[in-house]
């Protein structure tokens, strides 16, 4: 808690926003991994058992990283994971857009609007990516408390 108090207020807000977005994205997918696997397959990049692995593990990774962002001894790796995932999502949306796929984003489970707005998805993820990179820069200059606790 003391470590969080020392952070600038902007960083704390960004951390909470990123964590909130990733928790709200992860929970519906954890509730219904089969529907999320369908969304993954709809991008037509992977299928079969690989898509099932992604559908199974990715929501949990999102949840763990979201909570990790708020945990002093997990925040650096969580930030890096989140930035990597956001970059991946931007790439996937750009590819799907270029291929003209009319699919659900799958970002927050299946209960989303039916219209595919790739521009909005990419802009939203880019803004989140900028926030994540800012937090990574901030956190990488701090020593991880994990060095003491593990």
């Amino acid at each position, binding site marked *: 808690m003391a470590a969080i108090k020392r952070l600038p207020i902007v960083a704390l807000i960004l951390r909470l926003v990123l964590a909130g977005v990733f928790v709200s994205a992860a929970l519906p997918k954890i*509730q*219904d991994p089969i529907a999320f696997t*369908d969304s993954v397959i*709809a991008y037509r990049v992977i299928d079969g058992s690989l898509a099932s*692995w992604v559908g199974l593990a990715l*929501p949990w990774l999102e949840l763990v990283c979201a909570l990790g962002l708020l945990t002093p001894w997990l925040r650096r790796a969580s930030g890096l994971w989140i930035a990597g995932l956001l970059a991946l999502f931007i790439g996937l949306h750009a590819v799907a857009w270029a291929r003209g796929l009319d699919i659900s984003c799958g970002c927050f489970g299946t209960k989303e609007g039916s219209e595919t707005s790739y521009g909005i998805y990419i802009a939203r993820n880019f803004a989140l990516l900028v926030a994540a990179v800012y937090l990574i820069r901030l956190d990488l200059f701090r020593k991880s408390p994990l060095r003491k606790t593990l």
Partner: protein
Amino acid sequence: MCALVKEFLLIAALTCVGAALSIGTKRAQAPWALPELGPGEILAIDARSLDPIWVDARSEEAFAEAHIADALHMNEATWETGLFDLMDRWLETPRPIIVYCSDAGCSTSKKIAAQLREALPDAEIYTLNGGWASWQP
């Protein structure tokens, strides 16, 4: 650097625990338990997301009883009329075509799919692994 690696390992371990929980509570199917695919086959889980044109190759009675929404009925007996309907639909919006019969033991879907590949060489044609039985919840 060592602490960062520990952080990554801890995140991986927590993710694995969560995934195991999803399998343990039967929310998700274990990826290693998915059935193996034969040539030209597609899993129901993959087929759901493709928005394909469905072709039901079972008997007329089985089709009348229940079928996948918007499926066309097509077997050896109704081949000619079924093919015209299918071509109409496919030419209107080209998309994958998936043929199914009753279960993993039937072969009608494979025969129909083979005939369709000759009739529509540009179409993406699959047979549903496990057939109608695999589509049922």
